[in-house]
């Protein structure tokens, strides 16, 4: 052993000298070490999915109907329909819950809710429910317990040969067999089939969701453009329960998809930008404008419907009234703590001014609230002059046939279980849509003077500040 040491101790000495010589190099090395955290470099940690199992060999004969396809699916995926039937994609309603502004328990959701686009689905199921994830919801009698009515294809068809029509039934010309053979994970096309067309057409409703996102450039949406992300990359979830919330149908902050699911809470190299994150949603700077290519609807005046004027796309339709559409829409900004208030059937409209169909909650004093960008949709829609609540007209096979408001409102009120006095007017309403898509590359995000300048885009006083917080005081100091 000592012989061994004697023979090789010089190696240790040599190693020591090399170490000493390396010291200056180590000390002089100033390259910052790249963070290994996925939160700091989310693009490098994007989920890579295995190719979906090829289903083309499983089916060989044509399907007679949508439910027939579903039954075939359920032979292997026994739980799938059951899972879907627990989700709001199927029920179109929330759990029964208490709200702050009215006594009692209420079931919210698309099924019972009001909006200021097509107003209400009651009585209009034929058309509205072409986006329901089931087959044949055309009236109140729809069987929500029947698993074979679940539409698997609308989300899983990867062939592009499937389309839904009235009451959610396969549209004429859909190739059910080709669709069944092609099934895979939902793509932007699948989700977009409904969500890009909310409000009855491309880009109408959201402003930040439209057909251009099927194949966007990176300038339009950095996630879907540069990184080719699919909707389900952010709106994942298990057992068919998709993550995500829309303020048009929900009021709570559960089960939300957030930027911070992938990104760090303080992702900027500049300290000031990170402190901005305490009062400002990421979206506020990173979504400078929406409806960047396709115009979105910002105003809808139902009171002008029924006139024998020429229909002009994006401006007037006899069936629906007057519209304003805008491209490159600059959002409006409001405090939002991710909970909201919502107009519930039977609520009184505002005594004066505008009735808010939904309203982001939070203000400058609420530390959980941040300034968010919203698309605000303003409308004039029918209400009962005596009972002072909004009325849901029956439009499909109703007003759009006979153009008689009284009759349509009476029919609608009957279906909704509301009393109608016979006297109606048109109330001004507003609906807010928080924006989270069309995230622009960081170079094109807002910079300081977009907000902090005499002609900046924030209305500081409306937000509760004394003035521009850069010049006066921010929330942290107050």
């Amino acid at each position, binding site marked *: 052993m000592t012989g061994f040491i004697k023979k090789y101790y010089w190696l240790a000495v040599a190693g020591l000298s090399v170490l000493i010589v390396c010291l*200056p190099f180590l000390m002089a090395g100033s390259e910052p070490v790249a963070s290994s955290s996925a939160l700091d470099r989310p693009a490098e940690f994007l989920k890579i999915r295995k190719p979906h199992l090829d289903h083309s060999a499983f089916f060989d004969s044509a399907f007679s109907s949508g439910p027939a396809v579903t039954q075939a699916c359920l032979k292997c995926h026994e739980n799938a329909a059951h899972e879907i039937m627990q989700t709001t994609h199927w029920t179109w309603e929330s759990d029964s819950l208490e709200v702050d502004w009215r006594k009692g328990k209420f079931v919210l959701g698309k099924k019972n809710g009001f909006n200021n686009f097509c107003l209400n689905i009651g009585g209009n199921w034929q058309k509205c429910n072409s986006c329901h994830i089931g087959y044949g919801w055309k009236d109140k009698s729809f069987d929500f317990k029947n698993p074979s009515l679940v539409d698997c294809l609308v989300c899983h068809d990867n062939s592009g040969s499937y389309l839904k029509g009235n009451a959610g039934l396969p549209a004429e010309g859909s190739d059910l067999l080709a669709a069944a053979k092609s099934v895979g994970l939902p793509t932007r096309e699948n989700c977009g089939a409904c969500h890009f067309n909310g409000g009855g057409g491309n880009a109408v409703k959201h402003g930040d969701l439209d057909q251009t996102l099927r194949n966007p450039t990176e300038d339009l949406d950095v996630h879907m453009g540069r990184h080719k992300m699919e909707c389900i990359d952010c709106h994942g979830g298990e057992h068919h329960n998709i993550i995500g919330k829309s303020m048009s149908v929900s009021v709570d902050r559960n089960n939300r998809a957030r930027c911070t699911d992938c990104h760090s809470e303080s992702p900027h190299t500049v300290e000031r930008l990170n402190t901005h994150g305490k009062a400002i949603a990421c979206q506020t700077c990173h979504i400078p404008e929406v409806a960047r290519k396709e115009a979105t609807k910002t105003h809808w005046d139902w009171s002008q419907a029924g006139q024998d004027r020429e229909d002009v796309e994006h401006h007037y339709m006899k069936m629906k009234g007057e519209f*304003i559409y805008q491209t490159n829409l600059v959002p409006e900004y409001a405090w939002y703590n991710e909970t909201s208030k919502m107009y519930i059937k039977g609520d009184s409209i505002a005594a004066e001014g505008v009735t808010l169909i939904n309203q982001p909650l939070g203000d400058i004093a609420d530390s959980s609230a941040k300034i968010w960008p919203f698309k605000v949709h303003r409308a004039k829609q029918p209400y009962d002059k005596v009972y002072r609540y909004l009325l849901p007209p029956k439009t499909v096979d109703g007003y759009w046939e006979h153009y008689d408001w009284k009759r349509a409102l009476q029919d609608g009120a009957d279906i909704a279980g509301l009393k109608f006095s016979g006297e109606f007017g048109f109330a001004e309403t507003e609906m807010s849509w928080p924006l989270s898509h069309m995230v622009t590359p960081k170079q094109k995000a807002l*910079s300081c003077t977009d907000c*902090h300048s005499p002609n900046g885009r924030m*209305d500081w*006083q409306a937000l509760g500040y004394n003035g521009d917080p850069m010049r006066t005081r921010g929330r942290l100091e107050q």
Partner: protein
Amino acid sequence: MRLLQLIIFLLWISATFSSEPYMHPKILWKDSNGVLVSGDSRNISLKQSCGSCHDLDYIKGHNTHQKYGIGQNCLLCHTANPSVQAYMAGAHTNQFEAGLAIPPESLLENLKITTPRSENCGACHSGVDYNKGMVAGPTQGDGRKFISYLQSGKLWSPEKISESALNIVGKSNLNHSWDIHAERGLQCSDCHNTSNSPGAYREADQSRPEHLVRDPRKLPIREYLHRPDHRLMMSDAEPGLISDCTSCHDQQHKGVWSDRSDVHFKKLSCQACHVAEIHSPVAAKVSEVYPGAEARVDYRNLNSEGMLEAFSPPLLKRRIQKNGDENEFVWTPYNVFTKEFWVHGETAKKINLYDLQKHAAGLEDTLQIKKALEVAGFNNPRIIKQLNAVAINHNVTVGKLALADCAACHSPDSRILNPLRVSSVGAAVPELAEDGRIVWDGQFMQTDSGLVWAPGDQGGDLYLFGAERVPLADLLGLFMILAVLAGVLVHGGLRIYFRIKMGPSSIPAKRKEHYMYGVYERFWHWLQAMMILILLATGLEIHWPDSINLFGFARAVNVHSFTGILLALNAFLALFYHLASGEIKQFIPEPRGFLSRVIAQQVYYIKGIFWVAPHPFEKRMERKLNPMQQVAYLVLLNILLPVQVITGFMMWKYELVAPFMNGMGGLEFLAAIHTLCTWMFAAFILMHIYLVTTGDKILDFMKAMITGWEPEQKHDDPKER
């Protein structure tokens, strides 16, 4: 439909404007007789109107803009959306006293008095673009306006360069704003504030007791508003009115000790690195000699395809006030350009483009223009050519885009030392429009490509590593290396020749081995050897960064400094070892008979070595060095090494020795000595490595220094006999 849109638009507009509260009390507009101005056409008097609250005499006496004649028009700077053309018409008259005819009654009612905004400044100072619009070229304004933009390329705008309307090479990658301060929402008046504004008041660290964060005893707002000192804070203002980067930024917290930030902060202005490149058009020559709507401009950074290239501003020496010392300098970016224009009269008053256009429109010949001007009543019109230098203080980039490229200065292409093409202006060197702060250390030269500013040798003040060298030191060193190389080649060649001639070696394959070098000796030897090689390599890169690229300049400098310190440390420890162990004796020649021993060794190298004669001295562990080695190491360890370490250290911390060294050739002198010693070291190493091969077998000595055991050498030691 349209109406609805209009209403919404108007609502939006009113909402936007209501966000800025209007503070100024209602003004009673009066005429010069103090009578309230009503619907008739009487002029308003600022003295009677503004002067009823503000001390206009004080403002008049304390006013940066006074000399330009506009200092007496309150409304020009203090109203939103100033109508410059309208106000300029009467700009040169004494407006405080006389009436101001412009605003009609309806306008007066709505006139909002504000703090000057960037728009107000931008109305005259071109290149100020507060809104994020598309920044276009400088030729859009009228002839008077755009010069201040071109003379330094100043574009004070929050707009990203990539979004601008200018044609710039590589624009799409320039995803940063024209000026970071504009981007971050500053207004001109945030830096160029009135000098007694209590809002901008910040007590100097020197006068503020350490326990105080803020002294509340400021000028009360009421008194300030009565007598606002309109001398605006500027970087080149008189002492007490200076605002520069350090007015807001604390440079103490920047940089680490290893990056030489101390030296750079002392020698360079902030702008030197933070105005790295200018992408807007910059003038080389501005000519207002020919009539026209605009001046004629030669651009510095416009290429043949009409695209703007990045202009890397040269650094000129600028006198600064620092701790009361008038003679401090920094190198800071400038644009140097020539101006030519007509003047008249004994006072050489400038004839502006408007007058030129009015009296000499269409003329291209200067003689004809001169005649036309004379006819128009100008006395002795003549052209003045002027050389101007404008300090570049705007176009500041965000920190991460600041100049972090050592080669910008430390290379032959140095921003400090490189000649600058000033202008293509005619033969004579124009007169210098003096900026009292520039130290013109160098000379102007006429070359084929025009007038060139050639920075002089900055003497001991500056030795820019990588950009400057002392040719004599390099020449001597190179000669030394070549001489040693030649000697080694001749000597080695002869040895090989004789070995071949003599046939097979007479040295037995198996020889007795003596333990020659202890562990520690070998350890420090090899450590020193490696460090010297690293120092040579990094030193060469610092010396010639453009042709040698091993580690990168910054890394080379740091590695060189650290390794130098380690080498000195290792040498010191070795000295301690040799002293403590008594081994030092080996290095000290015994005086008696020393000369004859040296001769014996020389004779061996000249003759004996070729036929493998016995070494004249026996090499033993307690007496390893032959007489010539003793001499060599005596010189190396007592002269060369200390000189190298000491000059190296002095250059590393030059600030410490500057007062002492400045009279002795300064940094340049140190560098010359250091370079020369480097060559000597290199020559020594060459020789040293060659002599390692002079054992009986070529690798004998090498083996000894690695394993410690040396095969016995044939020797003919007189001491043994």
